[in-house]
């Protein structure tokens, strides 16, 4: 098969599975799971340093030669806070890539479309490669790609809910209209969900909770890796049309009764 690379912001990646680094029981568990996932892009968050515990540092457990660090703007309630976080991440020494999330609602953590668009405009102008986390809204996805975001990242279901691709029909429209990679982010709770997104034609998926909180994160990371690859290959191969009536797979001639 020809090499099938994921290209985001001019960079090529072999893996179509991005992995989040939250909720792991220990740094070593996270490190092993990242390795098992085959991911090349991993997300991190920015928070205030705990002055009483200054040595706690996740970067010492992430090989920056191997993974592209994708800082998110989680915790931002509006565009201004998101822009501030993105600029802080860049100042911390990251490449100017950002997973833009603006989630003012604490119960469903649904992204605010107006503030996300506003922040994306500012960050794109400021030279960032912007990967916006959005609700599965095809119109918003178009607006974002028009202003120059590197991807769109529609949610399958709210963050951490493990409910799968509940926004299927909207994501299908987003994929159909996309001129940038579509990364299904949030809510993917099982490898089959990831495979479903990839079979639909998503360019990549982002998974955190389902891997991090499983009893065996490395094994689950490997399962997601296979599911993403399987879904991608099925999409490339072309999934046949559905029909209501049975279509025999065995010949309909030469029966014994004839």
């Amino acid at each position, binding site marked *: 098969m020809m090499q099938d690379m994921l290209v985001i912001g001019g960079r090529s990646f072999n893996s179509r599975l991005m992995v*989040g*680094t*939250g*909720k*792991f029981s220990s740094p070593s568990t*996270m490190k092993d799971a990242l390795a098992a996932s085959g991911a090349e892009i991993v*997300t*991190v*968050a*920015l*928070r*205030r*340093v705990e*002055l009483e515990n*200054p040595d*706690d*540092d*996740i*970067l010492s457990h992430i090989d920056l030669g191997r993974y592209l*660090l994708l*800082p*998110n703007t*989680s915790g931002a309630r509006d565009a201004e806070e998101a822009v*501030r976080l993105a*600029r*802080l*991440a*860049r*100042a*911390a*020494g990251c490449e100017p890539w950002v997973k833009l999330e603006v989630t003012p609602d604490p119960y469903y953590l649904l992204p605010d479309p107006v503030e996300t668009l506003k922040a994306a405009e500012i960050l794109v102008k400021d030279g960032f490669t912007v990967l916006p986390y959005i609700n599965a809204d095809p119109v918003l996805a178009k607006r974002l790609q028009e202003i120059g975001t590197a991807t769109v990242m529609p949610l399958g279901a709210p*963050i*951490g809910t493990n409910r799968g691709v509940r926004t299927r029909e909207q994501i299908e429209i987003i994929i159909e209209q996309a001129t940038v990679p579509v990364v299904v982010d*949030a809510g993917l709770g099982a490898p089959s969900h990831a495979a479903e997104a990839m079979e639909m034609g998503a360019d990549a998926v*982002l998974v*955190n*909770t389902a891997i991090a909180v499983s009893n065996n994160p490395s094994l689950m990371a490997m399962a997601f890796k296979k599911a993403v690859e399987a879904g991608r290959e099925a999409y490339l191969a072309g999934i046949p049309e559905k029909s209501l009536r049975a279509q025999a797979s065995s010949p309909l001639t030469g029966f014994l009764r004839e």
Partner: protein
Amino acid sequence: MKVTINGKEQEVSGIKSVRDLLDHLGLDCSKVAVEVNSCVIKKDEYDQTAISHGDVVEIVRFVGGG
């Protein structure tokens, strides 16, 4: 002088620059990002960025996240 660091007012002395403040707090400059009065400070500006009485400083670092 009094400086607000990550939302907490603290009394510090002998501190002139962002670099001094990070050293005083025992923080590794390479692993954090700093804002002074809502202005992001680049790493190569830590030495020349002054800290004065009443400044509001935010110091952040990366943590696990999705």
